[in-house]
C-alpha cells in the first residue's frame, strides 16, 4: 500500500507539473510531500501533499495569497493531475471556471480538448467561451411553470481538424 501510494504520488507529481505548465504559461507548479513537522501537530506518520504554485513573473506564492482565478487554476491542475495518473471514467465539473478570465478559460478549454478522448467530461457552465470545448451541447431551460426542459445538439468540430493539421 505504501509502495502504491509512492507510485501514485510520483505519477500525480509529474502530471501536475505538466498541467500547471499549460494553465500557468511561463510559471510552474509542483507537488511535494511535507516535512515531518511542517504542518504543526502532525502524528508524524504520514506526510501530507503540499502544493506550490509560481505564476509567471512571480515568486513562489503562499497559496492563500493567490488570486481567485489563480486558486481555481491550481485546483484544476491538481484535479487533472489526479485524472491523468489514475483515470476515472467520467468527470462532472460544475462551473469550475467561474473565477477565470477569458484568457484562462481558453487554457481550460484547451485542456478539455486535449484529453477529451481519455475520459468523459461533462461540464456545466454559464460562460460562452466554455462552450467552445463542446462536442455536444445540452441546453437546460425552465419555463414559467417551474419545470426544467432539456434540448441537445451535436457540435461539428471542423476547426479541430484545422488545428491538428
Amino acid at each position, binding site marked *: 500500500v505504501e509502495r502504491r501510494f509512492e507510485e501514485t504520488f510520483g505519477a500525480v507529481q509529474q502530471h501536475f507539473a505538466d498541467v500547471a505548465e499549460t494553465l500557468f504559461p511561463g510559471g510552474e507548479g509542483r507537488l511535494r510531500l511535507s516535512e515531518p513537522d511542517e504542518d504543526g501537530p502532525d502524528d508524524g506518520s504520514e506526510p*501530507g*501533499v503540499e502544493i506550490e504554485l509560481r505564476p509567471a513573473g512571480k515568486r513562489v506564492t503562499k497559496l492563500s495569497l493567490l488570486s481567485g482565478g489563480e486558486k481555481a487554476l491550481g485546483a484544476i491542475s491538481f484535479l487533472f493531475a*489526479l485524472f491523468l495518473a489514475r483515470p476515472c471514467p467520467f468527470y462532472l*465539473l460544475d462551473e469550475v471556471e467561474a473565477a477565470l478570465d477569458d484568457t484562462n478559460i481558453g487554457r481550460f478549454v484547451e485542456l478539455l480538448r486535449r484529453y477529451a478522448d481519455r475520459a468523459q467530461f461533462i461540464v456545466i457552465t454559464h460562460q460562452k467561451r466554455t462552450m467552445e*470545448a463542446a462536442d455536444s451541447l445540452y441546453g437546460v431551460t425552465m419555463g414559467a*411553470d417551474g419545470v426544467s426542459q432539456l434540448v441537445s445538439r451535436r457540435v461539428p468540430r471542423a476547426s479541430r481538424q484545422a488545428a491538428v493539421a
Partner: protein
Amino acid sequence: MHLSAIKLRGFKSFPEPVEVRLERGVAVVVGPNGSGKSNVSDALLWASGSLSPSELRAEKPDDVLFAGAAGRPAADWCEVELLFDNADGQFTELEFSEIAITRRLHRGGEGQYLVNKATVRRTDLVELLADVGLGGGHSSVIGQGRVEEILSSKPEQRRALLEEAA
C-alpha cells in the same frame, strides 16, 4: 466505460421523465441561472448512492422530490437511472454490455436501488461503482462553488485523495 444516459423523473425540477443522452466527447451543459443544470449533477450523485442530503444542497432526503409548481402537485416518488455502456468490459463481475443503475425514493419512505432492474443493497451498488472507479469520495464530481477546496484543504486531506485514487 461510458455514461450513455441519465434519466430523471420526479427529481428536483424534473417532474416529467427526461432523458439526457450523452454522446461521445465533451458534453457542455448550458442554461440560465436556476434552470436546472446543477440539479442534473445532483441526480448523478444521488443515483450513485449519496446518503448526505447536504451534498445535494438538500436538508432532508425528501427534499429531492419535485416539490410542486404552478398547477402541478408535488411528486410522490422519484427515480434516477444512470445508463453505462460497458462495451469495453470494465465492469468485470457483470457480463452485460449495458448497465442500468437505478435509485428510487418514495416520499417518507426508504430508498430503493436496482442494477439492471434487479433490486440490490446499497452496498452492492456502491461496490460495483467503486470497482469501475466511481463513487469513493466522488472525487470525479466537482460541485458548484467547490473547486477551490483542493487548495484550501489540508495537506493530509489531499494525501487522502491520492490514497483513494491509488
